[in-house]
């Protein structure tokens, strides 16, 4: 596999990061201690490089109708400035990726514009699937992933830190920005003002922002954010804590909870699928049949949260047991740094998926007690 390096690779090296391969990218795993980084995001703020994520622009008169066809959600119903979590599915309902779509203001000539953000490892296949599905629509699908960096600031101090880079007259753009919305904001970077797309989105369960920036300006923005943060307010944060943060927040990870073999209903993402939209979309017939068959509610397996009653954590692919019989499989699991007990996401047979059900995880031959709990495991105080 080709090794990709983000525009921030040198910054990570300077900070002493240890690296890991993720979706073909050399990404910072951690800079110091993943636990310290995790707690910093919960209590102050973390600075993440997410440049491995994809950025695909969809523009043209048919852009909204096209995305209604290509994705499972009703994208055309979204207002300008908003973002929406959705899925791109196969004809058989299998999930190709989960992604976020941002609706941007229309171009000067009145054309609709959307930015679609797929996961790192799926960026190419998503861009290709979109291009293929665009055949009968008047749209242009432009994969800008290679030129675009993405920097996230996540945590309760995120807003205060970013405001220091924005002229006072424009503070309202940031403070008034709602969750799952995005706006162009003038940021002071390396002595000049840059209009950057700022989104109030994230993958940590905290308040936070994601900033889209040209590769050429990424290092300067990273340094500028680091420079305006006060002592103890912000730490660079790697993929290790990103995983523990998103797990506590009960957010699925493609490749763990979501896959082409799974389906949205089993994954608890039924509400994301808009069977009510009038138009056809890829996967519709299969998803209608899955829903009618009770997938994830009365049949098959369902994604649940498991809380460990002991100290030992379940890990991906470990069997889930009920009275010694295998009734499921863990997809993600580790000790929760914030909550102090092990947590896991697992697919279990629907008859054992009720909150409060006592189950075991087979920990390398030993049955360790867990209990089904409501997701998310962790919810921030607003």
């Amino acid at each position, binding site marked *: 596999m080709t090794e990709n390096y983000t525009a921030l690779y040198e910054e990570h090296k300077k900070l002493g990061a*240890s690296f890991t391969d993720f979706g073909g990218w050399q990404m910072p795993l*951690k800079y110091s*201690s*993943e*636990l310290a980084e995790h707690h910093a995001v919960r209590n102050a703020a973390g600075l993440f490089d997410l440049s491995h994520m994809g950025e695909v622009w969809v523009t043209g008169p048919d852009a909204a109708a096209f995305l209604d066809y290509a994705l499972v959600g009703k994208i055309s119903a979204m207002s300008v400035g908003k973002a929406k979590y959705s899925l791109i599915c196969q004809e058989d309902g299998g999930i190709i990726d989960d992604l976020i779509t941002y609706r941007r203001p229309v171009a000067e000539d009145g054309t609709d514009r959307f930015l679609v953000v797929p996961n790192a490892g799926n960026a190419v296949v998503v861009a290709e699937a979109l291009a293929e599905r665009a055949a009968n629509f008047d749209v242009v699908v432009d994969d800008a992933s290679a030129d675009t960096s993405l920097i996230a600031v996540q945590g309760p101090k995120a807003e205060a830190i970013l405001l220091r880079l924005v002229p006072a007259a424009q503070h309202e753009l940031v403070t008034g920005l709602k969750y799952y919305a995005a706006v162009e904001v003038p940021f002071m970077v390396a002595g000049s003002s840059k209009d950057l797309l700022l989104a109030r989105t994230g993958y940590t369960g905290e308040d936070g922002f994601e900033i889209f920036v040209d590769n050429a300006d990424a290092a300067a923005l990273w340094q500028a954010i680091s420079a305006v943060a006060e002592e103890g307010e912000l730490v660079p944060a790697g993929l*290790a804590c990103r*995983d*523990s943060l998103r797990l506590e927040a009960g957010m699925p990870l493609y490749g763990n909870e979501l896959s082409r073999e799974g389906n949205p209903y089993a994954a608890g993402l039924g509400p994301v699928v808009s069977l009510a939209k009038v138009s056809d979309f890829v996967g519709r017939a299969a998803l209608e049949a899955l829903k009618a068959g009770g997938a994830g509610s009365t049949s098959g397996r369902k994604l649940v949260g498991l809380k460990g009653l002991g*100290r*030992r*954590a379940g*890990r991906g692919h470990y069997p889930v047991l009920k009275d010694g019989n295998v009734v499921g499989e863990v997809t993600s699991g*580790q*000790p929760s*740094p914030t909550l102090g007990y092990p947590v896991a996401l697992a697919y279990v047979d629907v008859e054992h998926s009720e909150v409060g059900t006592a189950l075991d995880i087979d920990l*390398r031959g030993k049955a360790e007690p867990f209990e089904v709990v409501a997701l998310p495991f962790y919810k921030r105080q607003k």
Partner: protein
Amino acid sequence: MAKVAPELQYSDEHEWVAREAGNLVSIGISAVATDALGDIVYVDLPEVGATVTAGETCGEVESTKSVSDLYSPVAGEVTETNSAVVDDPALINSDPYGAGWLFKVAAESDGPLLSAEEYASKNGGEL
């Protein structure tokens, strides 16, 4: 780069061995291993009185991201375990060659052990 304590011997499985009085040895895991594991959150040690065999598993070390088997670098009877690291596994990260020691064995024989230099050159540690 991870420190390799020069006065200790090491196994290929990243345990260190310190010679104490007579045939008594104390055992822990190297900083190379703790760096690779990440923050350690749980440790399962052999029982006092148990017999351990060189090169065989005798416990587990669990970090935020993964679980690793703990191997005994020597054969013999376990005489003492470090209850402080059971209560606070972070000691293994913060002081792997000191307060983070794991257990002691009255050693009857050693498994294959490396000198600090050999271990460092093989595993990228710093003496």
